[in-house]
């Protein structure tokens, strides 16, 4: 009598476990799609200046790889810079970059979400998706 509920319980736990792992991988596939799309957007809109490897160009354009940017700025701030540009000097690895960055007014919230997901994955050491809803909200509240 005692053994049956515990067996059922075990089955239930197992079922939950399976459901969870398959759920996670579904999310991971979704995130990977963001990363791939984001990479293509990066090549189109960002790479000219920041370079394919994110190294930037001398003191003209700041690097994105191996920088403190990812600690100093949150995703919402980065979203606003991508969309609206950066007019004031920006400090990257304690070095000021004064060249004005033009905005990318044509980018939609989804594009921005994908680019940030890609950037975080590649150089931010942060494999989290930046979801569309967060991008929309961030862009609505840009300074």
């Amino acid at each position, binding site marked *: 009598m005692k053994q049956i509920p515990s067996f059922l319980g075990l089955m239930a736990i197992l079922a939950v476990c399976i459901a969870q792992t398959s759920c996670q991988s579904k999310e991971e596939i979704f995130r990977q799609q963001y990363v791939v799309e984001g990479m293509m957007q990066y090549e189109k809109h960002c790479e000219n*200046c920041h370079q394919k490897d994110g190294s930037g*160009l001398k003191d003209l354009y700041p690097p994105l790889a191996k920088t403190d940017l990812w600690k100093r700025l949150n995703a919402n701030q980065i979203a606003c810079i991508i969309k609206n540009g950066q007019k004031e000097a920006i400090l990257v690895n304690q070095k000021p970059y004064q*060249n*004005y960055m033009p905005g990318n007014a044509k980018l939609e919230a989804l594009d921005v979400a994908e680019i940030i997901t890609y950037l975080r994955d590649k150089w931010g050491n942060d494999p989290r998706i930046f979801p569309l809803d967060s991008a929309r909200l961030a862009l609505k509240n840009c300074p």
Partner: protein
Amino acid sequence: MLLAACQEKKTLPILGNKETIIKQGKADTLYQQIPAFQFLNQDSSWVSDRDYAGKIYVADFFFTSCPTICPKMKTQMLRLYERYANENQLALLSFSIDPDFDQPHVLKAYADRLHIKSPKWNLVTGAKAKIYELGQKSFMVTAQEDKNEAGGFVHSGAFILVDKQKHVRGIYDGTKEQEVNHLIEDIELLLKEK
């Protein structure tokens, strides 16, 4: 052997208009040349065609606030700058197509941030009409204002190779690494020309 012989003979064409003239009963071909010019560079010094007399140079057209192809062009031009740092026969010349904004002090800041120096690499500014005319007629590239274009100007990403006799010897896409590799091969050929 045959291949080597062919390579030795390879020369670059002279681009642009040419006209045949008869001089003392002999036919001679006159090739288009880069005409005289004078502009201010990033150090507010005059730079003219005379500074490039007897030199091979690579020219391009850009503007400092360009959001599109210029960064790629500058990345590639920087390759040439570093590669030929000690080659006195070769120089670089970038014309601003937004000269009203790109005053010498703006060019200076840009040059400093790019870690480049005149006269090896002059960034020049001057009368807009003169720069556009020089670009279109002599360097054979597109350079003009266009409000519909990102940044407000349309221009090609061309690198123009000019020889010691002021002839255009090649035009390359300065936004593409492969094309610039080709340009480097052609520079090597020109350096060997007398």
